[in-house]
């Protein structure tokens, strides 16, 4: 019986994930699931009382799947994850304008890349389950 060589015949290059966070919001490069639907621009997360919000601006289309997970497809023009106070944001989601930051500096999202978003989790020791952290 001939010995089977299990070594790969060529090197497989794995595309490296782009993983970033701006405060409570994390984003990782990821394909957008087929069941995700395009959605109008809105904040990725809102502060409960602070008036702060995490927004994605620039050349970007948001999507949402049936689990309410949000995705972004960033085009040639690139996009930015920003943390701003609602009072300074003029609603120009499609602009690459950098707004005055609230707490967290802006984070660049790569052009021609799709992202999945998630909110930092907190374990609720009383209810004994995980929930999105709040600011």
């Amino acid at each position, binding site marked *: 019986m001939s010995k089977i060589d299990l070594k790969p015949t060529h090197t497989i290059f794995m595309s490296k994930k782009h993983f970033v966070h701006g*405060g409570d919001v994390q984003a990782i490069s990821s394909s957008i699931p087929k069941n995700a639907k395009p959605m109008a621009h809105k904040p990725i997360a809102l502060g409960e009382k602070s008036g702060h919000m995490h927004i994605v601006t620039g050349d970007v289309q948001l999507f949402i799947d049936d689990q309410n997970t949000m995705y972004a497809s960033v085009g040639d023009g690139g996009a930015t994850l920003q943390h701003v106070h609602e009072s300074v944001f003029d609603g120009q989601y499609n602009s690459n304008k950098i707004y005055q930051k609230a707490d967290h500096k*802006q*984070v660049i999202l790569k052009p021609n890349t799709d992202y999945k978003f998630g909110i930092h989790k907190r374990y609720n*020791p*009383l209810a004994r389950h995980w929930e999105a952290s709040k600011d």
Partner: protein
Amino acid sequence: MAKNKIESLTAEQEAQIPLYLNKYINNVKSGHYRNVYKRDTVEKLINWQYEYSGFAKPMTILANNPYEAQLINQFLTNNYPTEIDTYYTSKDEDEKERCYTVVQDLIANYLAKDAATDKIKNHADNYIFTSDVYTNILLGWWGYLIDVLKLESTMNDAFLNWRELYENAGVFNAICNQKVCITSNYPLEIHRNEEGDLHNPSGVAVKWSGIEWKCYYINGRNISDEDFEMALSGKVTRDVYNAETNQDTRAAWYEILGQEKMMEILEVVEIDRGTFVHNDASIEEVVLFKTKKSYPETGNNPYAWVRFICPSTGTNYLIDVEPHHTSAVEAAVSTSPLVTSVDDYKFDDRA
């Protein structure tokens, strides 16, 4: 009456379910019920309900909230004005209105002078499902069956009449005595958590107009004024916390005081400290803390937190983690919504 068994819902019928679910919640959230809560609309509902049950029309008194309604009910019971009897038996509308005014003045005087310090000694529980906050559930489900599934029944006409009256009266609940019915308005504000339970760690979860009625709730649990305000006023010390045996109270204090204050109160020890070297070459240090003791409200486990430091502001954030962790970095990764391993927890940019 035709009998048709429905085996499954059509897509159109299913699509109507959330509309019926949300309709009555929206009536509360939008302020619709508070807007329509007026003497004439409320009397129409109450009179219909009494007549439907075979009783004469009562004198209907509008209170601002259920507690105020209880106080008014107790006041009228203890200081029964004969004008109520006259109102009940008279056919003369002018005379009825005069009696109504006398009783209203007595109540207004009581509310202005004595009610704030009065206590409920005899709680009235003679509420009825046709004029109550729970009416919304019945109207929603039964309305769906009639409107969408075309259910035919002998009570359809009565139901449709009742629904019309309730939706345009905005009665939170009603204490139904034979001669006097005391109704309550809906609240001004309602605070809820993500699960929809009443919840507000910084004040009342339900705010009412009228005589003050403090409704404190934490994750759906009603917390007494005394316990809630003790935490708000900074009177919960380590000794007080450890002496408290009520788990709901302790859980409420945790929510009200916040993690940092609770760590101070609960005697926290450092369990582990670790670092991540991220892809942007930044180094992040995380620390795992736990309480020395275990607590019944957490399932006889210690409380556990990871301390993160915000790279933008330098602020310390204490994020609760499951109590089984012994490694700070593993506990930190467990809070990520997107990755699950320490190897993958390498940010290309952090802010």
